[in-house]
C-alpha cells in the first residue's frame, strides 16, 4: 500500500483525470489552479526582481543598504514564511501568490544586481561619449550585458517559485491545487495519489523549464553569443 506499483500510480492518475469529467476533470482543475498561481506569482516576482535588481546594480547606496536584508531573507524557505502570511492575508490565493512571487524575487534580484555590477566601465564610457542618454545606456548596454546573469536568476527563480507554491499549497490552499491534492492524499495515506501528484509536478516543471526559459534563452542570450551552446 505504501509503495504502489508504477502502473497503479498511472491508473490512479487516469482515474483522477476522469473524475467529474463531463463538467470538469478533477486533475486538470488542480493543475490549472496551481498554474494560475504560478503565472501570477512568477510574473510579479520577475518584473519586480529585475526592476529592483537593476536599481540595486546601478546605485551603490541602494546596493549596500539592501544587500544585508536580501542575504538574510534569501535563506528563509518560502514555506517557513507561510504561517506569517496566513496571518496577514488568510488562506488561499493571496498568500500562495505572494509567497511564490517572493521566492522568485530573491534569486532574480541577486543575480540581476550582480550582472549589472559586472558591466565593464569602458562600455558605459564609450556609450556616453557617443551621446547615449542614461535610459539608452540601461537598455543598450546594461541589460544586454547582464542578460546571461538575469536568465540564470530567472531559471533559479522559476524552480524556487514552483517549489514554494506547491509547498505553500500544503499548508495554505483552500480547495484546489496540486499541492493541496498531494497533501490531502498524504493525510489519508493514499500513497498512489501522492506519487501521481509528484510525478505530474515534475513533468510540468520540466516542461516549463524546457519550453519557457530555455526557449527564451535560445532566442536572446544564445543568439547574442553570450553563452556557449551545449
Amino acid at each position, binding site marked *: 500500500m505504501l509503495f504502489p506499483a508504477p502502473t497503479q500510480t498511472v491508473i490512479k492518475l487516469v482515474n483522477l483525470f476522469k473524475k467529474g469529467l463531463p463538467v470538469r476533470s478533477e486533475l486538470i482543475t488542480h493543475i490549472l489552479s496551481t498554474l494560475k498561481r504560478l503565472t501570477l506569482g512568477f510574473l510579479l516576482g520577475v518584473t519586480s526582481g529585475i526592476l529592483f535588481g537593476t536599481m540595486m546594480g546601478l546605485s551603490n547606496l541602494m546596493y549596500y543598504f539592501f544587500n544585508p536584508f536580501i542575504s*538574510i531573507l534569501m535563506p*528563509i524557505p518560502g514555506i*517557513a514564511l507561510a504561517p506569517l502570511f496566513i*496571518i496577514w492575508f488568510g488562506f488561499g490565493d493571496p498568500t500562495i501568490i505572494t509567497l511564490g512571487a517572493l521566492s522568485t524575487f530573491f534569486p532574480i534580484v541577486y543575480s540581476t544586481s550582480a550582472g549589472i555590477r559586472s558591466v565593464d566601465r569602458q562600455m558605459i564610457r564609450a556609450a556616453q561619449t557617443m551621446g547615449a542618454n542614461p535610459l539608452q545606456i540601461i537598455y543598450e548596454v546594461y541589460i544586454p550585458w547582464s542578460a546571461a546573469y538575469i536568465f540564470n536568476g530567472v531559471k533559479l527563480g522559476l524552480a524556487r517559485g*514552483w517549489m514554494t507554491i506547491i509547498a505553500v499549497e500544503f499548508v495554505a490552499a483552500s480547495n484546489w491545487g496540486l499541492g493541496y491534492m498531494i497533501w490531502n492524499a498524504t493525510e489519508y495515506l493514499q500513497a498512489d495519489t501522492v506519487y501521481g501528484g509528484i510525478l505530474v509536478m*515534475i513533468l510540468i516543471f520540466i516542461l516549463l523549464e524546457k519550453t519557457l526559459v530555455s526557449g527564451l534563452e535560445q532566442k536572446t542570450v544564445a543568439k547574442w553569443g553570450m553563452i556557449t551552446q551545449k
Partner: protein
Amino acid sequence: MKGYINLQSLPAPSTLVDKFWQLAVINGSLWKHFFNSLYRLIIGYTLAAVIGTLTGALLAQNETLKTIFEPTFNILMSVPTIAWIPIFLITLGLGDKTVITAIFLSSYFSIMYNTMRGIEMVDKSIVRAARMMGLNRLELFFNVLLPASLVSIINGFRLAIGYAWRALVGGELLAALIVWGLGKMVYQARYFNDAAVMLVGLLVIGFTGFCLDQIFLITIEKNTVEKWGMSQKK
C-alpha cells in the same frame, strides 16, 4: 493610539527585540528549538557529506557504475525536496526520521554530483604523471585527485548546506510529531496568532542560513583565491 498598522500582525522592531530577549534569555526556549534543529541538520548533513563524497568518488572512477547509475541520479536530482516530504511522511512516519531523511536527500545529490564532476575535471596529464611516478590507486586518490578537486567538492558542500537548511525548516513544519525545532516554532506561533514569535523565528532561520553559507564561502576563498595569490577583493 490607533494607527494604520495592526501591531498584532505586524509588530514593531522594538517588540521583536523584546520578544527575542524574552525567548532567548528569560525563557530560553529559543535555544532548545535552535539546538534541536541543529542536531537534525548535523546528522542528516554529515551522512550526506560522507556518503555523497564516497559515492561521487566511486562513480567518477568507475565507468560501468557511472553508466548504470547516472540516469537514475539525474532523474532523482530533479525532484524537489519538498516533494519528497509527503512520501516520507507516509513511509517513515511523522517524526525525526522524515526530517533527517529529507535533509540527507536534499544535500546528497549536489555533494555527489559536484564530487563526481570535480574528480572528472582533474587534468588527465597530472594523473598520468602521478601514475608514471608509481602511485597506486589509493595514493593517487588521496594525493592527486582529492586536492585537485577540493574546490568543486567544497562548492557542492556549500550548495548542499543551503538545500539542507531549507529542507530542515520545511520538514519540521510539516512533520506533526516534532515539538522542538525552529520551523515548528514558527508554525506553532500561528495557533496563537503571535506574529512577533514568527518573525523572531524567521530572522533566526535567515541569519543561521546566511552564517552557514558564509562559512563555506570563506573556506572556498581560502582554498582558491588566497592559495593562487589572487587576493584582491572585488
